[in-house]
């Protein structure tokens, strides 16, 4: 599903150049649930941003579902993001003046799905995350966990190849975190490929594979026994 070879990325800070990713080789199979771990500054968010086509790579190759991702202009990147990727953010990033259902329907709008179908799908995915009765509520009327579940529904709505979650539980207390992880696990059980960036050990162990990043290189890449989040809920 994801194939990365010899990935380099550096940022220019004035005269200095900050080499963030120093040659990463990494691949993800379909249906995997991968945790990317590392301390801050290790380059895990940068990696996720490059995977999400929010940022460009300097060197190396990136293939997503057989499509080589290179020479992206903004429009092309937008279309790929829309087609291939679903994002889950630490700070939820819901649009605050849109109801839960409208938020979920937004990626479908950019896929030019008809309004009626958008609404049907939005309700379907809200039901999956257990928030159907909250469909007409604004994000400000939802709790943090509910917001993240709406965000997950939104990421799912576009039916992407890969879900990218950047610290999905970073802003939640542990109980809610487990609820969210339970949801992510269930989505993964349905065969979806999911990448989770986290720095929390317990969250990482709820995935099936843990990739450790340190100073821009992968120092550890191991399969783990998945801890089901359901038992904590």
């Amino acid at each position, binding site marked *: 599903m994801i194939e990365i070879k010899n990935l380099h990325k550096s940022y220019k800070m004035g005269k200095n150049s900050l080499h963030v990713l120093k040659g990463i080789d990494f691949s993800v199979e379909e249906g995997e649930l991968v945790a990317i771990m590392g301390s801050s500054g290790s380059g895990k968010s940068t990696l996720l941003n490059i995977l999400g086509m929010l940022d460009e790579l300097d060197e190396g190759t990136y293939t997503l579902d057989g499509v080589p991702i290179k020479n992206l202009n903004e429009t092309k990147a937008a279309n790929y993001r*829309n087609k291939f990727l679903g994002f889950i953010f630490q700070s939820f*990033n819901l649009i605050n003046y849109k109801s839960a259902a409208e938020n979920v329907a*937004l990626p479908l709008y*950019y896929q030019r799905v008809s*309004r009626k179908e958008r609404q049907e799908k939005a309700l379907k995915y809200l039901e999956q995350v257990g928030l159907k009765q909250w469909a007409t509520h604004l994000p400000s009327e939802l709790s943090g966990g509910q917001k993240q579940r709406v965000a997950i529904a939104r990421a799912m709505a*576009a039916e992407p190849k890969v879900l990218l979650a950047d610290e999905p539980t970073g802003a939640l207390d542990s109980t809610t975190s487990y609820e969210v992880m339970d949801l992510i696990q269930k989505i993964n059980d349905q065969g979806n490929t999911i990448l989770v960036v986290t720095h929390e050990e317990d969250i990482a162990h709820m995935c099936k594979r843990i990739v450790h990043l340190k100073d821009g290189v992968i120092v550890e890449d191991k399969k783990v026994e998945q801890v089901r989040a359901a038992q904590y809920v």
Partner: protein
Amino acid sequence: MKFIFDRNTWQEIFGSISKNKTRTIITIVGVLWGIFIYIALSGAAKGMDNGFEKVFESVSMNSMFVWGQSTSMPYEGFKTGRPMQLKLGDVAKMQNRIPEINNIAPRITLGNFGSDPVFTVRGQKSGSYPVNGDYPVYTKIATKQIFDGGRFINDEDILQARKVCVIGERNLQELFEKDEDPIGQFIRIGDVYFQVVGVHKLSQGVSFDNDNAIFIPFTTFQKLYNTGDNVDYFCIAAYDNVDVVQVEKDVKALLRNIHRVNPEDERAFGSFNLGEMFTRVSGFAKGMTFLSLVVGIATILAGVIGIGNILLISVKERTKELGVRRALGATPAEVRNQIVLESVFLTMIAGVMGIILGAGVLSIINNLTKDLDFPYTNPTVPIPYVLGALLIMVVLGTLIGLIPAQRAVSIKPIDALREE
């Protein structure tokens, strides 16, 4: 351009502006105010223009009066201070020599210029009124509205020197009973009985005559008062689109020539140029129209810039939202279109509201000034001006919307998302 006609686009835009009510209202008020000022000002200026037009409607707009005074320079053996007397024969000479002249109405009068008004009697009632000896051509220079059933002096009256008269509304009130039909009745003017053939209305605007002036045929006046070929003053109307100031100069020069006055003598003949006055007044009204146009457009401009400003701020505020949209697959073009269309849509809404409001205020002003003695009639803004203003607004709205739109696009989605 397909996106403009896409219902989904508009639903998205409508959602965005209807759910940010404060922002929308503040934005709208700027342009609304601008277009309102524009409509109200240019309508008011037009109303004043129309008002002046109405004031002058009963007189020929390029007309003048010429009368004789007395010389101030010696010439050909004549000494200074010789009184000037205009003659009927001057009419033909003027018409022959000055082709710009359309009509000349000679007039002889009692009760104006210091002479005593004439004592007029009907039955038990009486009064003293100015009396004018006139030719029918007079009505071509100053329209006289005659009440139903009457007429002005005609050519036959002149030929036969009939003893007929046209009286004013005030004469009617003072000499006749209420509801009495004056036509065909006789009144005594001085020592002679005249038959009333018409009653003239007092015109609301500029008029040469009072509402108590009595008109009789010029020839009758000549015989009655033994004035020979004397004329008190000429009412002269030039053709349209003629420089009336030049005509005035030509007329006076010709009169000096006819009456053997020093060509340099400016004081021998007096004149009053209504055309010049009208040109000045209408120039003033035109100036007002122009001024209101400039002020109005400047206000619209300020309003549109205000919209741009608020959109720019709101783009900053919405950076995150736009970042999210782009992460979810909105292309830069889609984001840009959304911002620009929001701008255009807001401008249009505000513009239309402003036009309606402005038209409402104009109609209120119109109602309030209807019965006032004030030169203000029918304030309107021509449709092309309104459409032009709308067009300007849409174009400016698009251009000004491009600034925040470009800004929104220039921020990378990754940076937009990072912003807290």
